[in-house]
């Protein structure tokens, strides 16, 4: 069944805003593992089933190193391969290099540390809600709420001045846009790296009590590595929770019963965040890996050098694992979704993202019980053209 669709290629084009592309879902209904043609004509694999997806992500024989990567679509992955990945960009390293960087950071993102941040996240959230109330509707929820909350939180945590956000938010958007040319993406990355190198130098001259300041003082990383680590954390801290808050609110606004449960029942919120993460899976391209040796995967031989793309959004809808997976049900007990990945690269900031979402969704819905879309749902511009899915804008009123 691995050839059910000859010449299969990857796609991010959706028929409906909250569901993964129908063609990828059809592949999963046929088979959890399928041959796929990559953007560079490489003949690799597509994984659509949950169990195999998890197996690949946990398997030490699959690499994330950029020089081995094949791009599933013409996007920044090709750029990441052509351009040297910056030092310290450990999402594109295998152990033991990856381990060295990650271990320096994991102590800063523990469940307990993130719990200590909650009062500050609540304060930031309330400030944004106050500002929305003063301004009055309609507003773009992305600019007024979804983007500023994670942006302020990650800036304070890292020690990046929020006042500089215009520059790094612009660079980040260009880097993640599938429409950017390789030259534009590289220029944006270089600009952001230059900005972070300057920031690291300032922290070397003047110690600061924040994550980057701590890494500078720790003395284990040089300035280039520190800038690369900063780039990864800054971009990842912005684009992920921001898109979950925007897209998640859109999904709740079109599912009023689910919205009411999140607004009215505090006991539902924790599970609702996991269900929204599963159902919406904003990671709509990959993760992508390359086999570094022959691997037997579900009875099929993946040869050394062959690429494997995991369609996480489709695997997160696998009925064998999640039952009625096509339905958004915030009251269901859900765990083990792949939205934060699996294996040694599983999201470093996931406990921060959970804290932000558990606070922000109910706070928004309780402050504005009459929250509604200010445009028809079909006019909400979707981020099919970005490396991370979501809404470009979400006009709302109350």
């Amino acid at each position, binding site marked *: 069944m691995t050839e059910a669709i000859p010449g299969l290629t990857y796609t991010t084009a959706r028929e409906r805003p909250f569901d993964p592309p129908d063609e990828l879902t059809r592949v999963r209904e046929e088979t959890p593992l399928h041959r796929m043609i990559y953007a560079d004509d490489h003949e690799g694999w597509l994984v659509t089933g949950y169990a195999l997806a998890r197996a690949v*992500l*946990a398997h030490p024989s699959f690499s994330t190193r950029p020089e081995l990567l094949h791009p599933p679509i013409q996007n920044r992955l090709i750029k990441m391969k052509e351009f040297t990945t910056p030092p310290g960009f450990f999402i594109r390293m295998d152990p033991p290099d990856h*381990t060295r960087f*990650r*271990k*320096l*950071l*994991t*102590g*800063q*993102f*523990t*469940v*307990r*540390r993130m719990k200590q941040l909650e009062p500050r996240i609540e304060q930031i959230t309330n400030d944004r809600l106050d500002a929305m109330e003063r301004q009055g509707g309609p507003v773009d929820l992305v600019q007024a709420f979804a983007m500023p909350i994670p942006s302020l939180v990650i800036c304070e945590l890292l020690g990046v001045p929020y006042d500089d956000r215009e520059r790094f938010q612009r660079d980040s958007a260009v880097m993640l846009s599938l429409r950017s040319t390789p030259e534009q993406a590289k220029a944006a990355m270089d600009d952001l790296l230059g900005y972070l190198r300057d920031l690291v130098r300032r922290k070397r001259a003047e110690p600061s009590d924040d994550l980057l300041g701590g890494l500078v003082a720790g003395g284990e990383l040089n300035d280039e590595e520190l800038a690369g680590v900063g780039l990864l954390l800054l971009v990842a801290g912005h684009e992920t929770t921001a898109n979950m808050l925007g897209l998640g609110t859109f999904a709740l606004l079109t599912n009023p019963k689910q919205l009411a449960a999140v607004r009215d029942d505090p006991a539902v919120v924790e599970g609702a965040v996991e269900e929204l993460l599963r159902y919406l899976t904003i990671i709509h391209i990959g993760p992508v890996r390359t086999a570094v040796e022959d691997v037997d995967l579900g009875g099929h031989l993946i040869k050394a050098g062959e690429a494997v793309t995991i369609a996480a959004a489709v695997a997160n809808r696998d009925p064998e694992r999640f039952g009625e997976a096509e339905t958004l049900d915030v009251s269901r007990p859900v*765990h*083990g979704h792949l939205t*934060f*990945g*699996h*294996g*040694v690269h*599983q*999201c*470093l900031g*996931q*406990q921060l993202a*959970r804290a932000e979402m558990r606070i922000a969704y109910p706070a928004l819905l309780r402050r504005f019980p009459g929250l509604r879309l200010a445009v028809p749902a079909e006019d909400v511009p979707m981020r099919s053209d970005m490396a991370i899915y979501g809404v470009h804008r979400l006009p709302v009123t109350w």
Partner: protein
Amino acid sequence: MKIKADTGVCVGAGMCALTVPEVFDQSDDDGTVVVLDPDPPASREAAVRRAVQLCPSGALSIEE
């Protein structure tokens, strides 16, 4: 049941501490797993098994 944790394998994702905070914590130093109760009561068994299953790095195991 007896819980075994390999801090050399652990990547500090925190799924165990999130799932059963009564049994698992994380080191402030590098975020790796700290087992607070290696022989938890039967009432926590289901949650502990879920934490083991959720662990992204395979650092946790159970000896019956």
